[in-house]
């Protein structure tokens, strides 16, 4: 899609507008200061051109008591402006990073060299993301191999996608259209081919798209979390009955878990992922560290399914730390 202006990329979210305003402010600073310097330098060069071979300049520093004041002025003014820029930039940065409550949650898995995206309802896409306009979308992202980076210029934010833990990207598109999705972190040979598009649609068109899409949850070959929970035999230990050797996972998500070493941890996505890959690192109080590690036996996508499944298990909170 051709950018709407030769110097500005599409402005497809409120955050994009905030960033552009910030940029405009910084840019005017740049123009003012570089013009100032350029003009002064050129004027002095011409005005104080050497006119005879033995001519010498005048030291205005030692003779002028105001020199120090001058120096102070041109240290303090830039500093002040810089702090304003810093404050404003930080405000925008928090806007870019803090998703609004209730954002719809999508999952993104990066790998060399494609993006795999899962909708909240389990629908999956590759290198494309269809979203309705006006909906706040939060992406939970992880990489299966090296570091990638989710970059949509129209939304004016980058976030790296790490192999070791989940990172978050959010946006709320405020206009329809097709926007570039780039991989913004160099990730190997086909880095420049790790591109896709974000397709923002009218809600009605989105519904139609959803209805028309054939790709159901299992069509891409990844089992659902519920199936995995059985096929990876998690359920042999994690059973709702009291004879189980492992904590009940119902209602676990979002609670505080007491650990063996006396500390506490919040059961969020990263915690659950860690519990499956590194069960020994955070052992729930009152349990033996008998859970085997599933590292290497389970892909990031399957992990996402499992995390989602455990998240969806409602019921009495696990009586962790009894």
């Amino acid at each position, binding site marked *: 899609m051709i950018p709407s202006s030769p110097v500005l990329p599409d402005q497809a979210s409120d955050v994009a507008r905030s960033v552009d305003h910030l940029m405009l402010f910084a840019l005017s600073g740049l123009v003012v200061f570089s013009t100032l310097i350029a003009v002064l330098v050129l004027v002095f060069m011409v005005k104080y051109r050497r006119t005879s071979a033995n001519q010498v300049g005048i030291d205005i520093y030692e003779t002028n008591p105001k020199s120090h004041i001058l120096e102070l002025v041109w240290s303090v003014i830039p500093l002040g402006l810089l702090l304003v820029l810093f404050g404003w930039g930080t405000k925008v940065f928090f806007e870019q990073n803090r998703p609004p409550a209730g954002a719809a949650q999508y999952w993104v898995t990066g790998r060399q060299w494609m993006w795999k995206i899962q909708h909240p309802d389990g629908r999956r896409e590759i290198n494309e993301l269809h979203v309705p306009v006006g909906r706040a979308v939060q992406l939970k992202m992880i990489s299966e191999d090296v570091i990638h980076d989710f970059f949509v210029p129209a939304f004016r934010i980058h976030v790296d996608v790490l192999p070791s833990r989940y990172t978050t990207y959010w946006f709320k598109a405020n206009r329809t259209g097709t926007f570039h999705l780039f991989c913004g972190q160099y990730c190997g040979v086909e880095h420049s081919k790790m591109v896709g598009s974000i397709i923002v649609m009218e809600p009605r068109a989105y519904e139609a798209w959803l209805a028309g899409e054939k790709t159901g949850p299992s069509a891409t070959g990844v089992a659902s979390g519920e199936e995995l929970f059985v096929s990876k035999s998690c359920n042999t230990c994690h059973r709702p009955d009291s004879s189980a050797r492992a904590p009940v996972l119902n209602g676990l998500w979002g609670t505080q878990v007491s650990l063996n*070493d006396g500390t506490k941890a919040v059961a969020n996505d990263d915690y659950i992922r860690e519990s499956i890959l*590194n*069960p*020994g*690192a955070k*052992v729930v109080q009152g349990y033996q*560290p008998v859970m085997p*590690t599933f*590292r290497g036996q389970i892909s990031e996508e399957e992990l996402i399914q499992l995390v989602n499944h455990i998240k969806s298990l409602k019921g009495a909170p696990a009586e962790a730390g009894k």
Partner: protein
Amino acid sequence: MSEDSPGLAHHFDSYEQQKDSATLGMWTFLVTEILFFGGLFAAYGLYRTSYPAAFRAGSHELDITLGCFNTVVLIASSLTMALAVRGGQTGRGKLASVLLVLTMVLGTVFLVVKGFEYHDKFVHHHIPGPSFHFEGPESNHVQMFFVLYFAMTGLHALHMIIGILLVGYVAKRAWSGAYTPQNYNFLEGTGLYWHFVDLVWIFLFPLLYLIGRH
């Protein structure tokens, strides 16, 4: 090099300038060494705070008696080195040479003991890599402990080896009377280097061997 001032390089004006330059140069070099090891210490600090239990477990696999013994050996070698430098300072080259050989011997003892420790790790499959094995909950994080253990002690051992060679060379020069009270800068510099290697061990020992022994 003028005849009346042996050992004074052509671009220096006085022995004092030459010595001050040498000392300053050596210390500056040691500061780079501090930061060189510093990168490893940073990694160690980070992972140790992240995985305290695993690091405790890994540390318990090390032999504290041998570690202790080696600490004593190394500090003793520092003493002999300091005395050797004093010998150079006071113009007793032969004495210095003997003390330097003693230093080398102590350094070698340290390395041999270290070799036994490494061997032990090998036998117990504690060498990081595909063959790594550790019974216990967090075996992968314990492996990180051993990665750091080998990186830090290995780099230290490498410094020891370089040190021993250097000390050997200096011992030979000292015997043949190359150092005078005016110019024993190379001996002094080697001494500083040796003490630095000792300093690194002074930190490595508690960090690697003594975590959560109680």
